[in-house]
């Protein structure tokens, strides 16, 4: 290849490259132009769209406003309803609930939405509010169903209505439910019925009282002749006279009649009893030394009476005569329930009721001395249980022993002492009758006298008493002041936490079971956040529970059982403070 050829070839290559550059440059310029045109057109289109979007947005806003107002009105209606209202979808998930619903279940609305009832309350038993299968399956309303539902206020009796929720095409897409809490209404109705019953009973008793009051005095005078003249007659006639037997019978009948009059008088004199401070243990011992008890042992030689008496038993304010009579009646009944013989156990102990409960009757909170009479006899049928306190109601052979007024006297006496009665009985297994007498704190000095209080006096330490029951706070405060402590008391866990947060406290006397609000354990946990070394004494009417133990694990000290006995109380607090 010559130089000329080579040069030519190179020139050719350069030309091609130059052409390529030209082509690319031209293309680039045009492409840029295209791009700019497209951009211009894009903005043109875009601004048009903007305008359209703006117009539509305005219209939508107007509609939204109208909807918002309508919705608000509806919300207000739904949320101000005193009943619970809930909407659920086809999978039984909550779509909307009203305020009352959220309140009753103690869950925030946002936590409820999207969940089923079972998901919300996994531990609780299923109820009608949670299960919609019937409505969804039958595609028909389920109306006026009564059911018990667990809520933050406890188990409530509700009236529930549920209707299927349909879309505009009529397909069922969920349910709408309404539930009304009937508990209070039913309770009021029940109370009314109870009161009516009580009234009838009281009227009956009053009538008997009036009658007895009216006739007893005269009858007693008349009976004096029948009871005392046979004695004179028996002195006059010979030992072997055939008249002796009938005369003794006359005398015994007279005595029996006199006993009935006595019981009638006891009932009639209710309300005018003279009360004094006494100890139930002493009264039991009085009875066991009495003639009546000796007689009982003669009638029932196979019956053994045992006692189990609490040595630290607190005092009660009572009419001793009536209490002894009550003990006697109960022991007689117990003995008669065991014709084959057996053991009657009389026991006493201190007791604190922290939460009202329903036994034979409703038993209120408070400190009590309890008397228990336990037999292993024939028991009382459920039917009889409802009537045993009515005068002259008996399943025993009438006239055999009692007057027909024994249990009526028991009832009257307990009621006069503002006490309560509980009975547990099983036919052929026996009966336990428990009497609750309120503790009196009137004579604390007598309580203290047993030990040397000076060893346990405080030094003005500051003690916080937390208890939901006012009487308990009062007693604790009273005892603490006597023991030379400074005291502050609050009625719930939340207030206690708040107080501890702002004030240093040497010791907290903390009730375990409090309602409503947080309990002792939760309150203690909160307090520890502010003062990890906070001293506390846990108290409860029940025996030590898991929660008490949990609190003790967290650092709470001794466990103080209610009702408070001043000796234990003083020792425990002193000991705790010295730790």
């Amino acid at each position: 290849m010559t130089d000329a050829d080579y040069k030519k070839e190179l020139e050719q290559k350069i030309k091609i490259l130059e052409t390529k550059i030209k082509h690319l440059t031209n293309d680039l310029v045009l492409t840029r132009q295209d791009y700019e045109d497209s951009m211009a057109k894009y903005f043109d289109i875009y601004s048009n769209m903007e305008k359209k979007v703006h117009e539509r947005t305005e219209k939508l806003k107007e509609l939204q406003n109208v909807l918002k107002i309508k919705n608000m009105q509806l919300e207000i209606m739904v949320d101000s309803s005193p009943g619970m209202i809930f909407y659920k979808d086809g999978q039984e998930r909550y779509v909307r609930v009203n305020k009352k619903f959220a309140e009753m279940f103690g869950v925030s609305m946002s936590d409820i939405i999207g969940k089923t009832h079972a998901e919300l309350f996994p531990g609780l038993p299923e109820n009608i509010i949670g299960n919609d299968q019937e409505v969804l399956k039958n595609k028909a309303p389920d109306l006026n169903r009564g059911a018990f539902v667990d809520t933050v206020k406890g188990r409530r009796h509700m009236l529930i209505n549920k209707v299927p929720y349909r879309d505009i095409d009529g397909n069922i897409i969920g349910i709408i439910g309404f539930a009304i809490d009937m508990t209070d209404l039913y309770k009021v109705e029940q109370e009314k019925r109870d009161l009516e019953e009580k009234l009838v009973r009281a009227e009956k008793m009053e009538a008997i009282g009036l009658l007895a009051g009216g006739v007893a005095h005269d009858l007693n005078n008349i009976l004096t002749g029948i009871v005392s003249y046979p004695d004179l007659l028996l002195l006059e006639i010979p030992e072997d006279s055939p008249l002796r037997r009938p005369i003794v019978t006359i005398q015994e009948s007279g005595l029996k009649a006199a006993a009935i009059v006595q019981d009638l008088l006891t009932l009639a004199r209710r309300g005018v009893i003279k009360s004094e401070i006494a100890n139930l243990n002493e009264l039991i011992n009085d009875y066991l030394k009495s003639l009546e008890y000796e007689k009982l042992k003669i009638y029932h030689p196979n019956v053994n009476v045992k006692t189990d008496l609490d040595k630290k038993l607190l005092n009660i304010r009572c009419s001793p005569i009536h209490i002894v009579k009550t003990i006697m009646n109960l022991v007689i009944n117990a003995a008669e329930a065991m014709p084959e013989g057996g053991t009657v156990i009389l026991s006493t102990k201190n007791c604190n009721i922290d939460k009202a409960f329903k036994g034979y009757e409703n038993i209120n909170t408070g400190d009590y001395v309890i008397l228990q009479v336990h037999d292993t006899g024939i028991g009382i049928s459920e039917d009889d249980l409802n009537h045993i306190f009515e005068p002259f109601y008996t399943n025993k052979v009438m006239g055999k022993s009692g007057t027909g007024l024994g249990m009526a006297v028991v009832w009257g006496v307990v009621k006069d002492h503002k006490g309560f009665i509980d009975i547990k009985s099983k036919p052929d297994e026996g009966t336990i009758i428990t009497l609750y007498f309120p503790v009196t704190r009137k004579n604390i000095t007598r309580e203290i006298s047993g030990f040397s209080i000076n060893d346990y006096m405080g030094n003005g330490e500051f003690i916080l008493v937390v208890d939901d029951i006012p009487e308990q706070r009062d007693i604790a405060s009273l005892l603490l002041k006597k023991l030379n402590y400074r005291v502050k008391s609050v009625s719930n866990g939340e207030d206690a936490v708040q107080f501890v947060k702002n004030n240093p406290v040497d010791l907290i006397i903390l009730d375990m079971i409090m309602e409503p609000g947080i309990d002792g354990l939760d309150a203690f946990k909160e307090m520890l956040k502010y003062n990890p070394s906070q001293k506390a004494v846990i108290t409860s009417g029940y025996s030590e529970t898991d929660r008490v133990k949990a609190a003790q694990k967290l650092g709470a000290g001794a466990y103080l059982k209610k009702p408070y006995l001043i000796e234990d109380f003083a020792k425990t607090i002193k000991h705790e403070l010295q730790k």
Partner: protein
Amino acid sequence: MNFIDGRDMEQNQDKKEKLDNLVKLVNDSEISSIKGIVSNIIKTINDPSSTAKDLKEIIQIDPPLTAKILKLANSAYYTTRSKISEIEHAVIWVGYDAVKELALNQKVCEIFNKDESIEGYSRYLLWKNSIGVALLGKMIYRREFGEKGEDIYAAGLLHNIGIIAEDQFLQSEFKNTLKAAKSRKKNLNSAENETLGFEHPEVGLAIANDWKFPEELVTCIGYHHNPVAVEEAYLKRKVYTLYIADYLCQENHIGYCDAPQPDEELFVNCRKALKLERYALQLIVDDMKKEIKQMELQGVF
């Protein structure tokens, strides 16, 4: 314009009648359905103030066309990011000019359907040739002249509309023409003159005139085998470019070839008149072939 001077008047009269009849047949047929839209798109090409909205309005009155354009705009060829469902969006994404091209392609393509293959001719091959010429014409305009060349694109697509008219309305004569051209190794033009008495550029000219296409387009269609007959200076470049594009497509076997006996002298004259170097054109042809290949692969036609 004086195309048929120097010929026998009687013969001219006869030919004019024949052409008029053919145009009438075309106007009564489905082919005329493309008239409105194609003219409108060409109008936007010639009107710099036209907007995307105008283009949208032209396209949206033809639902099948709208559907086809959206389908193409969504094809892998344009690699859209999100689904394009409106012509306006297609304009933004694919580009204003590209949408015009697509619309034109689709519309003109309609008249090339119902394919059958005779003597090396088929409507598909003719269509491929049209696309090739249109594309090459446009590329020459862009790269060599630095102009958009949208009208040359339209001219390339439509330059053989005369053949379509003959194919559809003078079927037996057209078959004979194809046979004659094949057996005697002639260009289609001379065979047409013998069997029909006129050439397809004349048919195209008559149709384009009747459809009131713009003057440049009419001239391009009518003179694509005889560009030097065009006297108006401002039209020369377009007609020459179209000829060059057509010549190069035939040379490179892009689609149907109506002139197996190329007139190299005419080609060189046109080329020189436009100052286009052979190697420069070859560079463009190479790129055009790549483009056609890609379009085939993507199923654009």
